[in-house]
C-alpha cells in the first residue's frame, strides 16, 4: 500500500529501525516500510509492504512488541500510525 505523506521529511530512519527489528542488523533494503520520492507534491510517499517479495519483509505491525518501531522515530507518528492501522485493517481483518 502506498500513502502520501506531505509532512514526511524523508529521513528514512523508519526503514533502518524496521530492518533492525526484522533481522537484528540495519539493512533498509529488506524493511517493510519504504520511503519513495514524491516529485509532484510536498513530502514523500510511504510504501508499506503487504506481501513479502523475497527481499522485503511484509509488515506485521511489529506483532509481539508494544508498538511498531517505526513510530518511535517518526516526527509525524500520528500520521504514520494512521497508515499502519489501515494496513492492519486490510491484512488482518
Amino acid at each position: 500500500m502506498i500513502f502520501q505523506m506531505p509532512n514526511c521529511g524523508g529521513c528514512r530512519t523508519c526503514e533502518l529501525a524496521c530492518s533492525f527489528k526484522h533481522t537484528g542488523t540495519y539493512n533498509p533494503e529488506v524493511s517493510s516500510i519504504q520511503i519513495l520520492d514524491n516529485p509532484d507534491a510536498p513530502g514523500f510517499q510511504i510504501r508499506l509492504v503487504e506481501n513479502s517479495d523475497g527481499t522485503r519483509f511484509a509488515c506485521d505491525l511489529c506483532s509481539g512488541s508494544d508498538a511498531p518501531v517505526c513510530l518511535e522515530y517518526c516526527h509525524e507518528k500520528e500520521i504514520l500510525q494512521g497508515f499502519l492501522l489501515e494496513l492492519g485493517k486490510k491484512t488482518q481483518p
Partner: protein
Amino acid sequence: MYGYAGEILRVNLSDRSIRKEPSEKYVRDWLGGPGFAIKILYDELRSWVTPYAPANKIIFSSGPLIGTVAPGACKMNISTLGPVTGGWATGSSDSHVGGQLKLAGYDAVIVEGKAKAPVYLYITDDQVDIRNADHLWGMTTWETLAAIRQELQDPTRHIISIGPAGENLVRGACIIQDTNRAFGRCGSGSVMGSKNLKAIVAKGTKPVRIANPDRFAAIVKKSRKMILGGKNVERFRKYGTLSIFARKQEVCGMNYKNFQHATFPEDVAAKVDPVKTIDKYMVARRSFPGCPVGCGRQLHFTDGPSAGIKVECNQFEAAITLQGRLAVEEPTFMYRANARCNELGIDIDAAGGAIGWAMECYERGILSKEDTDGLDLKWGNEEAIFELIRKISYREGFGNILAEGSFRAADIIGRDSARYAIHLKKQDLYEPLRGANGWCLGAVTSTRGGGHTTGAPWVETTGTVDPVKAREIFGAEKTDDPISYDGKAQMVLHSEILQRASNCLGICIMNTTVIDLDYPDLKEIAELYSAATGVEVDVAALKRITMRQLNLEKAFNLRFTDFDRKDDYPEPRQYNEPISGGALKGWKFDKAAFNRMLDEYYDLHDWERETSFPTRRTLRALGLDAVADDLEEIRKLGKEDSQST
C-alpha cells in the same frame, strides 16, 4: 566488524585499478571518517604533492555510526589536500550517499590519480565501476542527478557530484549531495574536478551490524530523549539555524557589507527576517537519517520576485555570507543565491567572499567597470551578483580572477586591495569574529582555514547557558560571557574534541552540546560508539584520539604550508576596527588579552607559544613520535616549556 563496514576501497583513476584493504588497522587510533583520512593522507602524500596533481588523494568516508539509528548519524566526510589553504581540507555534510557507501561495504573510498576523460564512480556492494561521464561533464549538479537517475532507471538514487565550478577548478568549488547539501569548504570540488571525477553513485545492501544491540538501543533512546527534551527543538525544527537570526543581530554576530558592520541596519534585518519568509513559504520538511530534530525544509515562493521558484531552505550561513555581506535587501535573495551556488557547485562563502571583496573595492574606487566586465557592483545589486556567481563558476572574464578567492584576487589586482580581502589562512571567511571570543579563537586556530565545526564553541551567544552545566562540560567559567577572554581556550579545547568525535563517527554536531548544553555530550557519544562497535572507549579515550588527529592535522599543515602563530589571528579588519553599531558598538579586541588567550590555548595543547608548533612531548604522548621526527627534520618541532621563557 560491528558499526564499521570493514573495508576501505582504493580507486586509482590513472591506471583504473581498484583495490580493497581492511579498515581494522585504523580503528583503534583514528576512530573513522576524517580521523582515517588525516592518517592516510599524512602517511601517503609526499611533501611535493600539490592539490591538483594526480598524486593527490581525496577520501570519502562514512563514520562507524552511519547506517544506524544513532542520533544524527548521517554526516559523510570528504578530506584531501586542498587548493584554498594549501593544507588540510575537510568537510562533513548530510548525505544519504554515506549510508549507501557503508551498506556497500566501505568505511572509506580513497580516490587517487587522474582519469584521462571525465568519469563517475559507480559503487554497489562488490561491484565498483569507473564509468564514462563525458555526457555529464558540463552539467550542473542538479542536471547530473537527474541524468544519473534516468540512466540507472532509479528515481531515488543518491549521488554526490561537482558542477561547472569543480570542473573549471574554481578554487572554492564544492561537492554537492543530490541537490542541496554541500561539502562546502576548502575547495574539495576542484580536487575532484582535477581528477576528472564528476560524481560518485552508491547503493548497498550489506547489513550494518551492532555489537551490543540492547546496550545500543538504550543509549540511542537516552540520547534521543535528551534532544527531544531540549528547549529549542521546536523552533529549530521550524526554522533550522535561521532561528538564530534575531539573536545574532542582537549580539553583533552578523556580516553587513564585507564585515564593515557586525549588524544589519534594523530596517534591513526586519525586511529579510527569515522567520517571516519561512512561515509564509514553507511547504515540506527535509530530514536526514537518525536525526530527532529534522531541521530542513522546502520552500515554494508563490509571489513576489521569486514567484514560482522552489528551493530547499538554506542555513543561517547564507543569510550573512551572501544576503548581508553583499547588502541585498530583497528577502528571498539568500535562498535563490544559495540554490544557485549549489547548482553550480561553488561554496557560498567562496562566492560571497570574493564578490564582497569586489563590491567593497568598487565602492572605494579601487575597481571600476573596466575591471568588472561592465558590471555595476554597487552594494545589493542582485543581478550583478548572480552574473558574477555564474562568471566565477565558468572562469569567465572578471570571474576568472574572483574564482581564486578574495585573497588571491587581491594579490592579482594589487592596488592596496588586500586589506578588503577577508580571509583566514587564505580561505574566504564566513565567521564574524568580534564580540564572541571563544567562537573567534576556535575559528582562527582551525586547521582547515576558518570554519566553526572543528573547534568553535557555539553556545556563548545563545543566551541560554546554564553556568553550572557549562562549567561541568567546558571546565571553564564565563562561558556565557562572550567578550571575556577567560576560559575560552578551555571552551575551544572541548569543542575541538566533541566536534571531531562527532565528525569521525558521522554524527551531526547539532545533535550534541555544540548547540544545546542539555543534548548528548562526549559521555553519550563514547557509549554510542562502544555499544555499536564493541570497541570500548570512554571520554578520556575520545580526548586522546581526537587530540591525536588535531596534532596530525597541524603536522600535515606544517608539511604543506607556512602556517604558524601569525595565521592564528583574526584578519586585520576585525582585529583592528571597533564594532560600528548595535549592542557592542565601540567594542574592539584587546590585543594583549587576545595574545594571552592564544598563549593559553597553545599551553593547553602543549604547543610552542612563539610558533604554535606541537612539541615532541605532546606528540609522543599521542603515539606520534615519528611525526615529531618529521617535524624536527623540517625544523618545525615546537620547543617545550616555551611559556617559561
